[in-house]
């Protein structure tokens, strides 16, 4: 996509280069919402292609789509529901990691809520697997902890 010479500052676009070498354009006002990007712009200038080593061409378009809606004030509950509807767990995690890296607060908050929604009422083992965590407690240690906090373990299902 050829870079356009921007005449007016209000429609200025910024070029972003993903970790796998693809270039995407976003509006300057959307770039402002991603603090990491804005910091790079402040350091490198806004005419340079900003390199994003930890964000890839699979997820960046989705992030750009979100912030396009944000700058026109059109993010509604319906839009957000639609946005995550067909995403599997892995795709949500990848977006979440990207939002964290980019310091894109609004998307980060929304995805935190969405991940929590996906984990709600799930078993401890499910949450472990979701975050790729190894259980380093011995069975004795674990049952002692369960006993200490019996009031929170009461009534939750353990399978899954």
């Amino acid at each position, binding site marked *: 996509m050829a870079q356009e010479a921007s005449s007016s500052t209000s429609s200025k676009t910024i070029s972003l280069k993903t970790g796998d070498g693809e270039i995407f354009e976003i509006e300057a006002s959307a770039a402002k919402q991603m603090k990491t990007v804005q910091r790079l712009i402040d350091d490198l200038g806004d005419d340079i292609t900003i390199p994003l080593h930890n964000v890839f061409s699979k997820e960046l378009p989705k992030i750009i789509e979100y912030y396009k809606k944000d700058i026109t004030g059109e993010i509604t509950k319906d839009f957000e529901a639609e946005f995550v509807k067909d995403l599997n767990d892995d795709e949500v995690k*990848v977006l979440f990691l990207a939002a964290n890296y980019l310091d894109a607060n609004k998307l980060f908050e929304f995805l935190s809520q969405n*991940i929590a929604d996906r984990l709600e009422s799930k078993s401890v083992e499910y949450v472990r697997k979701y975050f790729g*965590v190894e259980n380093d407690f011995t069975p004795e240690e674990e049952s002692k902890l369960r006993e200490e906090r019996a009031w929170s373990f009461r009534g939750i299902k353990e399978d899954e």
Partner: protein
Amino acid sequence: MSSQRSIPTLDRISTLPDSVICHILSFLPTKQSVTTTIISKRWNPLWLSVLTLDFDDQKFSDFATFRHLIYSVMLARHTTLPIQSLRLKCGISSGCNPYDINRIVRAALQRGIVNLILDFSYTDFDFQIGLSTTISSVFNCRNLVVLKLTCLTFTVVPQFNFPLLKTLHLDSVSFLGDQNEEFYKFVELCPILEELQTTNMQFWVSNDCDNGKYNKCFSNLVRAKICNLTWSWNVPFAWICNAKFLHIELSKEQKVHTFHNLTHFELIFKSVWQRKWNWLVELLEHCPKLQNLTLNQLYGHGIDKDNWKEPKNVPGCIFSQLRKCSFIAYEGSECEFRFAEYILKSAKVLRTMTINASLVDINLKHQMLRDLSLCPRGSATCKLSFD
């Protein structure tokens, strides 16, 4: 310089810092967040650093167990650890009593709460009257930034002062007193309010909302949503005239104020009144920046006592700002049609006109679509979309 994504997602997720994990935990019910203590040695203490408490008695059959959970959590947490947010929803479990709720809320408020959400749906009148201690504590808390109250009954409006409050949601909150003079000071006492939402409010505000007492506006207001108005509650338009986004259910005419910043307006008509069409035009003339207009049930409440007449001058926003116009529950009455036709021909930058006529017979719908698509359009890029 192309690099492959060599580190699997799961590894990257597991290297997230504690603060991010705690942030996700803060969106979970506290009961579940406590159970993460056995996930691993690293996760073991994390729930204790979560500054949000979220308790909902929906899955508890009796209140005693629910209460035990809350007290256990409070005891397990270090007393110096602040509570930033509390969400407490109760009323379903049997044996739920206001005395305990008063103690819990008061204890929480003493720990520096900034965000408070209380939901007493499913409780009855007697229960809510018993919460007067809770109410006084809440209204004495000047640190609040977010306050959301559902199902509460007040006999007297307490003195209040919320200098830091940015978000206020009130749902089914009733004030039983005759006069609520405190309320007209609302704007001064919540000076930096950005978001206001009211639903099913029941209280007596002087019907004379247009007098000087209600003239102030929330200067920082961005968003307001006013639903299910009753005859005894009116949010004066003057209060919300700075908003950018408005969603309003209207049962009667309100004095028009200029909405200087308004870009998105959804109006739901709950009844008709004399001069409705004239009033609507006058309103639009006072929304200079309006880009997105949604009209819901514009017709459906009996015969219009007024008729649509084309105004002499096109309201400024329709001519140069309006990009999106929607009709919901369109019934195809003469007035509605003429109004839609007027917008189509006068709006020079209109991109979409959406008509949702789900209540109408399918044959009539085809006729309506045909009639509307034949109307001349002032904007070359305007798309007509029919539901």
